[in-house]
């Protein structure tokens, strides 16, 4: 990395150097990740699911979701025309499940991003700034941590109304605190290292210290915890939608199962109505968990179970 040609400006050279270092560390992490079979299986599974979700409009026309244009029989078992059977108004379960993947993934990912952004911001600032602000932030995040998340989510959704936006906000609100705690602990560790003292001595401001020194050291951990937050967000979304608290105008895996139980799919022995959306949730959650656990092992070698 030191073999780069003489730079035009010292700033550009510094940037190039930083990027070269980042590339190297990424390559190292990737090699460690690739060595883990479950992590790779999870990644391939996840890739396949994302491709299917993105390709849904190409594979099946959106009109298949329309209640009025449904062509199948009422809760008909799988047939040549409907490989996974139909729901109570005659829509194809295959089409519903495929289209449902888009919403379930979208809500899970967006809620995680929001939660991670809140959690990282509060974690880094409360660890770095400390004082009254740090104490207050810690109290609030602890409070969210001990409250039963589903109870809070149900209560907030009942108050805020049922829509995709509120679902995302509510899931993010009940899941940011774990990240905060993790990031705060890591911030405090980084904080005590000599290079931060050096930065301070050279006159670095709080913003510079936080973004240039603390954040890069915290991010790998955040990435691993984000990967494990997505499955819990997806499960939370499906539970809320199944309880009947989801956006009534869209199709997600949870809302399909909500309709299934409301329309007596269990007593009608309509296994084709229950299995596809549920298995879809299970697969996505499993894929994310496999990736997340592998990432955790990459960034935290102790978890690989090698005796120290």
């Amino acid at each position, binding site marked *: 990395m030191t073999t780069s040609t003489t730079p035009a400006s010292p700033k550009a050279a510094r940037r190039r150097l930083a990027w070269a270092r980042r590339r190297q560390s990424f390559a190292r992490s990737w090699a460690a990740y690739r060595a883990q079979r479950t992590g790779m299986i999870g990644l391939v599974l996840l890739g396949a699911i994302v491709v299917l979700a993105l390709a849904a409009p190409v594979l099946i026309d959106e009109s298949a979701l329309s209640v009025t244009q449904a062509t199948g029989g009422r809760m008909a078992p799988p047939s040549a025309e409907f490989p996974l059977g139909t729901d109570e108004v005659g829509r194809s379960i295959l089409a519903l499940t495929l289209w449902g993947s888009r919403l379930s993934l979208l809500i899970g990912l967006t809620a995680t991003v929001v939660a991670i952004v809140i959690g990282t911001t509060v974690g880094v600032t409360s660890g770095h700034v400390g004082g009254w602000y740090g104490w207050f932030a810690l109290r609030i995040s602890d*409070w969210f941590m001990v409250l039963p998340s589903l109870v809070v989510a149900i209560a907030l959704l009942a108050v805020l109304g049922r829509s995709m936006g509120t679902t995302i906000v509510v899931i993010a609100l009940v899941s940011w605190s774990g990240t905060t705690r993790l990031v705060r602990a890591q911030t405090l560790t980084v904080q005590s290292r000599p290079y931060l003292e050096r930065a301070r001595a050279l006159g670095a401001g709080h913003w510079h210290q936080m973004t240039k020194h603390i954040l890069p050291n915290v991010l790998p951990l955040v990435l691993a915890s984000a990967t494990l937050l997505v499955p819990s967000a997806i499960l939370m979304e499906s539970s809320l939608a199944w309880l009947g608290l989801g956006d009534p105008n869209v199709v997600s895996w949870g809302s399909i199962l909500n309709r299934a139980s409301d329309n007596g799919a269990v007593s009608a022995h309509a296994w084709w109505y229950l299995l596809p959306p549920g298995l879809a949730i299970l697969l996505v959650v499993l894929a994310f968990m496999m990736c997340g656990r592998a990432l955790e092992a990459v960034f935290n070698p102790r978890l690989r*179970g090698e005796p*120290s």
Partner: protein
Amino acid sequence: MTADSPTPVDGAAPAPSTGRRPGRSSSGFGRYLFKHVSGAAVSLLLVLFSSFFIFRLIAGDPIDQLTKERPVSPEERAALRAELGLDQPMWQQFWDYITGTLTMDLGDSFQYRRPIFDLIVERLPATILLSGTGMVLAVLLGFWIGTRTGWRQGSRFDRGHVATGLLLYSAPTFWLGMIVILVFARYLGIFPVNGMRSPSTPPEFWPQAADIAHHLVLPVLTYTAVVYAGYLMIMRSSILDEIGNDYLTTARAKGLRDDQVRDRHAVPNALLPTVTLVFLAIGGVVNGSIVTETVFSWPGLGSLFVQAIFYPDRPVLQALFVLFSASTILAVLAAEILYWFIDPRIRKS
């Protein structure tokens, strides 16, 4: 999805010894206790306040919801309003709520027109029966398997159990419940579909107990299946931390059998960090009981909460929100106090 990553309790990090006398003294414990009890008290107060204001934001006039079915005269509305205490100014309602909650007078349910305290007393045993049995089973099963998988890390037994556990952990609780009902109650017909007792059972004690146990099997099965993997992973990683320690080599050198080394030496040490996690998982217990009770129409507090959301029965929501949150806050407090006694490192800080 709680209890996934073993997060240490506040201040659990080994503190550098500062040369002060080791704080086994009562004053050290007093300070520790005060810190955590006051923290919990602040959390409880926050819950009490927010519960009052959150549910007041639910759109719509409660009187409209109460009288959906029939037309009512303005006089009737006013009477109803007075009966429910809704004609009082907001601060008066808030004061009544606070004093009422502290004296266990939780008001009347809109939906049942009965004191909420009676409703809770009536339904609490069902919830404790289901979640308690489920949690005990999940902890025992998770710890038992976790010990053995960690001890034989990388073996076929380990890989198989970790994979099974993760698979069940990934299944949505409500969906697993529906599938279990479909298979065991609908197709095989060996267990009841839902509820807690059948009306046809004779009223004597033993037939009733057997009937409830029969109804309990499927919900507990579902609940345990989803939750035990969390405990398995905790115990497994805790055992992995112990493996390779010198005291285990010593135990082996004494000539102990492998399972004796595991059960008498490794397990007691590995249990230490997991004990508090069992308490911390109480939040997950509440979440799980809400979903499981709803799938199986189990007459507990979780299904009452879900019913109340759709009515919406504001006093019931308020009371249950406080109850659920308070139980998790108190469980965490108990975990922190327990930690003082089982982990000597904390006394030095």
